[in-house]
């Protein structure tokens, strides 16, 4: 078995095993469906409800990606600023860290007060959770530029802007792309939190409604969809990262 195949087959095998144990445990221990439905039952409900689930999943995806996109923009900007200027770093970095330590779930009610129930608070929550890793990674990439390299270029008459463009930016790209997969996961968490609290669409909303109806199967179905979406989003950005900045990973 090749190493590549092994890395794919082993976790899938463990996953299948766990699902099987779950499937068998539910009837074996006479667990009520309302407490913990069997996986087969959950999948049946998911198929029956495929239309609404797809609608809500698309809503969550769009919300996540809008918030993520805005976060990448601001994260890059802040990261470049903090990485390139010591003054900007001293002024902004403590604030960023402070801001990042606020549990974002606590911000959602505020956003709902301002923007009402709907997609806007979800987009904003996704944005608030996602920009920090981007900003920090980009800043780190710029701030750790080797002094020797800077000197080599400065004695050629290179300006700060040239050093930033020719060395700083490309050097930061692996960290930037590494931060994207973290950021997209964070954005996803943000939009689902907000949907759960105050929305009228999205998988988070679907799950909240299902839970209040004691429709445990549908709630679990929503969870499955979230897991699949989360893995897929992460996977897409991890793949992009490997393609774009392969030089940083070889060996």
């Amino acid at each position, binding site marked *: 078995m090749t190493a590549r195949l092994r890395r794919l087959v082993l976790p899938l095998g463990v996953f299948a095993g766990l699902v099987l144990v779950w499937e068998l445990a539910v009837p074996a221990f006479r667990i009520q469906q309302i407490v913990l439905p069997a996986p087969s039952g959950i999948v049946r409900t998911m198929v029956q409800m495929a239309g609404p689930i797809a609608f809500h999943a698309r809503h969550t995806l769009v919300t996540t990606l809008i918030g993520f996109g805005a976060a990448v923009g601001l994260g890059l900007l802040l990261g470049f600023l903090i990485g390139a200027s010591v003054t900007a770093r001293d002024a902004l970095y403590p604030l960023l860290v402070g801001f990042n330590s606020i549990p974002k779930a606590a911000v959602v009610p505020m956003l709902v007060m301002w923007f009402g129930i709907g997609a806007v608070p979800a987009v904003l929550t996704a944005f608030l959770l996602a920009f920090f890793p981007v900003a920090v990674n980009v800043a780190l990439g710029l701030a750790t530029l*080797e002094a*020797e*390299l800077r*000197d*080599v*270029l*400065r*004695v*050629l*008459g*290179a*300006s700060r802007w*040239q050093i930033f463009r*020719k*060395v700083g930016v*490309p*050097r930061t*790209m692996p960290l930037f792309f590494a931060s994207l997969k973290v950021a997209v996961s964070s954005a996803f968490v943000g939009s689902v939190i907000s949907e759960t609290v105050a929305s009228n669409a999205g998988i988070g909303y679907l799950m909240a409604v299902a839970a209040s109806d004691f429709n445990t199967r549908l709630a679990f179905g929503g969870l499955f969809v979230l897991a699949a979406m989360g893995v897929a989003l992460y996977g897409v950005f991890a793949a992009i990262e490997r393609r774009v*900045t392969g*030089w*940083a990973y*070889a*060996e």
Partner: protein
Amino acid sequence: MGEERHAPPHVHLNPQAVAIRGVSYDYVTGGRVTRALADVTLDVPRGSTVAFVGPSGCGKSTLLKLIAGLLKSTDGVIAVDGRSVVGPLKNVGMAFQNPVLLPWRSVLDNLLLPLEILRENGDPRAPDRVLWRDKAIALLGTVGLAGAEHRQPRELSGGMRQRVSLCRALIHEPALLLLDEPFAALDAFTREEMWELHQKLRLEREFTGVLVTHDLREAMFLAQTIFVMSANPGRIAHVHQVRLGVPRTLEQLYSPEATALMRTMREQIRPSRQAVA
């Protein structure tokens, strides 16, 4: 060979490649001023290589940065080609112990980086990428890296990377090459190969070299003049002319004269080491 006093200043008549007059450098850490260099006066004749040796903290790397214009001296004047240094020089090659190649660029593209910058800045020496590409490939050939132009830095050994770094420092044909312990991280045999390579390049290209090193044999092999520095604050303590002829061979480093000079320099460096401790 023997010790000489500092040459008298006559900067204007025959401009030296580098002329340093009464240069001091203070740096501030935590509100305390420390004098790193005190009253350094010396000349580097055009086309020669000088070496600075001395204990750690004697300010030899600082002196190199002052010459390059990367630091500004507290007192005194430094002139390169008869013009006083006020900011980073624009026609200098530099190489360090760490080769700092760009891992996302091939060997060739690493070499072309200085030219890209010169070209963007409208420097007439970097007219045409194609032309320079051929020059870069030829230069790689002279350092024994023919055919390596499309390899990635991570595929190269430490010695090969250091050769590329040296090529990058020379690709734009600088008049002045500044080397800060460029071979310190290499094994002994690779280091000796690099000395011979450096000598060959210097004889072909006639640049002026300033070398900072801990290695007395390296200084003897590469330099015509060796400045022995003492620490706290950094000063030029002794000056030695190395008269081993041109070109030099590694064999000459074992001659009685070379051995005697090496012993003298060791004795001169040792007391200032004890003063630090």
